[in-house]
């Protein structure tokens, strides 16, 4: 019987690539060098042990001894890497032996690129003003499910409404929900490459996609947030709605409106709220039943704190923070 595997039990029984024999602990456990993840180390130890152990009863005595050596090595690796102090000592020795710079390897592994882009919640029932920086190594999920990276609490938002993914150095948005829709810059989309300044409407929320630099500019705008509160009228999904940064909020009965007030006497696109010349104003969109501010039908009218806006059967209280 040829016992050529005795020359390299590590290669034969653990499939380790050719290299130093015996291999250093990280090679033996098939871990990234200097790996500091405790669970990952423990898992690797068990995995290698499971692979080698069935051979421990090999009929050939010499092979058996070689297997014993490998098992001892795995156990030694487990001892050396599971304790902080021991690992530190071992790592330093290893770095010196291999002539490599441990600090640099660790630093390069830590160097996940800083986020370049972010989403801001410009308007919506909750979370208005939030800024979510987008990490390039992750899938950013948007939806009502609290496990989403960007959870949006409104019945108009799907459990998994959409997701953002970084591919080929670009951010892409993909719509996921079958019953609902996503508008980007007022157009209905299933998938789109995002550019800084894009306005995403996800179930009544307005999310703005910005390059980090531009967010700074935007947040420098001294714009008081406005909050709209339904004080009377049929029930709606979002009775409170806030806005901070968007150019406008479209109010109407239609599904595509930013703030949906569904009821009789509300037009599909009823009115629009926007920020102009340092104040919030309401503009009627030629609605059938008109837009009324403090009991007076208006075409275009500035809004102040405690104004009452009437849209069909809805009475809406305006709050503008100073």
């Amino acid at each position, binding site marked *: 019987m040829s016992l050529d595997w005795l020359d390299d039990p590590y290669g034969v029984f653990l499939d380790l690539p050719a290299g130093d024999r015996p291999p250093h602990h990280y090679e033996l456990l098939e871990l990234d060098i200097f790996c500091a993840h405790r669970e990952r180390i*423990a898992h690797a130890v068990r995995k290698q042990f*499971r692979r080698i152990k069935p051979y421990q*009863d*090999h009929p050939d005595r010499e092979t058996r001894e070689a297997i014993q050596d490998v*098992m*001892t090595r795995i*156990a030694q690796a487990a001892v050396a890497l599971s304790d902080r102090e021991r690992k530190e000592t071992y790592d330093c020795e290893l770095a010196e032996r291999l002539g490599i710079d441990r600090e640099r390897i660790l630093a390069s592994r830590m160097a996940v690129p800083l986020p370049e882009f972010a989403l801001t919640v410009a308007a919506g029932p909750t979370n208005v003003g939030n800024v979510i920086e987008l990490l390039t190594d992750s899938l950013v999920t948007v939806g009502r499910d609290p496990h989403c990276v960007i959870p949006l609490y409104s019945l108009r938002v799907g459990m998994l409404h959409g997701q953002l993914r970084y591919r080929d150095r670009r951010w892409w948005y993909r719509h996921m929900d079958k019953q609902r829709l996503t508008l980007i810059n007022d157009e209905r989309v299933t998938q789109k490459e995002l550019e800084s300044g894009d306005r995403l409407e996800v179930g009544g929320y307005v999310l703005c996609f910005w390059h980090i630099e531009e967010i700074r500019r935007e947040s420098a705008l001294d714009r008081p947030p406005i909050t709209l509160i339904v004080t009377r009228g049929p029930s709606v999904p979002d009775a409170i709605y806030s806005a901070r940064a968007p150019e406008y909020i479209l109010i109407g009965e239609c599904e595509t409106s930013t703030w949906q007030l569904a009821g009789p006497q509300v037009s599909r696109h009823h009115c629009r709220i926007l920020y102009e010349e340092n104040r919030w104003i309401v503009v009627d969109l030629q609605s059938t039943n008109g837009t009324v501010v403090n009991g007076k039908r208006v075409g275009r009218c500035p809004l102040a704190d405690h104004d009452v806006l009437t849209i069909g059967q809805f009475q809406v209280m305006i709050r503008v923070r100073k």
Partner: protein
Amino acid sequence: MGVDLGTTFSAIAYVDARGQVKTIPNREGELTTCSAVLIEPDRTVRVGREAVRARSDRPDRVAINFKRDMGEKYYRESVGGKEFSPEALSALVAKKLAADASERIGPLAGAVITVPAYFGDARRKATQDAGRIASLNVLDIINEPTAAALANAFRQYLRRGGDATEFELAAIATTVPSTTLVFDLGGGTFDATIIHIEGERFDVLATGGEVRLGGIDFDARIVDWFCEEFIRRHGIDLRDSPESLAGIHSVCEMAKVTLSTREETVIVAERFGKTLHMPVNRRHFEEVTSDLLTRAQISVETLLEDTLLGWDRIDDILLVGGSSRMPMVTEMLSRISGKKPNMDQAPDEIVAHGAAIHAAIIQMHSQPPASVEKDGSRTLSTPEVGRESDGGAPPLPNLFDRKVIEATKRVEMINVNSHGLGVIVRDSRENQVVNSVVIPRNTPLPTERVKVFGTEAANQRIVRLRIVEGDTRDTRGCTQLGECVIRDLPEGLPKGALVEVSFRYDTSGRIHVRAVELRHGNVAEVDLVRDTGFDQVDLMRLRDAVSEIEVE
């Protein structure tokens, strides 16, 4: 009679008529006997402490640790210029135990011998053979952890206030179902087994371990460390002669035992007029042996992973084996489990106790109920004449109380196989010979499994199935147990004609393999009986040789 043939220590125990388990001390009055054999030039054989002592001046005449080589067909230990198989050496130990025991309690009926649960088929056979060579009537072999769990359950019953003489319905039974991890770190082997106990039913859920991990490995670490120190101080290697190595070995072993109860001790050795006093503390000992304990830890962790059990599902941890006395064992187990391991019974004897209980159970089952008197009074019936038993050993006397019989008869033990069983086939996709596992390890016994394979070539007239033990696909991790050959297949059979292979593995360790060519029904069957590794002639010859030897 329960016989625990350990790597370093052996013990023998029995269940008395009132149902109490007792260890039988040897002639020297020790409860455990060192598994060491000294063969004097005049062919006198001495087993036990005296043999260990003789190691320091006549190491070539003493055999130790031969349990590790059990079941190796061609391995022979050379003792006093003569070759011995590990089985024969074990037989000498068994003979000494049996001889001393019968001196104290009279003639022995049958014996149950223990084996580590992780032993493969060859090693089990060898252990059984050792018993036969020693002219014991081997009733069965039992896994050491199972024996320990059995003895522990029995003892718990007694502690709850049960009286062994009153052996009521719940005799051995625990009241609540519980799952126990038996951690058995002995002199040479390590076993970890998870057993679920419910009523009188003992279910082994899984077993794992290492056949080469035990106290002697821990000793070797201190020996190496101390010898290196000696070389550094005096430039002399204490390991250069067998005498001196044996001497330093026993000194280090003593130091290890001391360190289990004390924080510090001193190792002293002298050679060619140079002396070295070396204080050693427990921390240092634990440091140099840390990887050995880690191996046991990894085994336990993978075992839990295999059974998909978390530590919250383990109710008890039972420590068995002399090496579990090392405080670091308890520390390690409490650290990883968050539980306090239980170590209240003499860990060296518990396995023999369990084997004795198992032997009693077997005797109950074989006992005709008619020989028990109606009123349940103790009966000392006369040995039945003409009863067949293995090799003419005396028939089993009827020694037990009726209640004892009733209770032990209920005990049910479900075991698992510690190693997978499969057949060697060619994987056509990889064009490689692989082991196709039919019965995976940790399958409850008895079991029957079927797999279907296709023939390798067109017009194949013969199908040869090699039956192996092993868990890897890689055939290098397997040992062949036997062959099953279908002959005389009709001509013109296409390639890939179906052959059904079924394995039946019963509780006594018998493997029945049946292979059927499905179209024409050609059948081949083979029984692999875990009977003996030797052929009958060899076995008888060895038995005669051993029975002539006077063991002291």
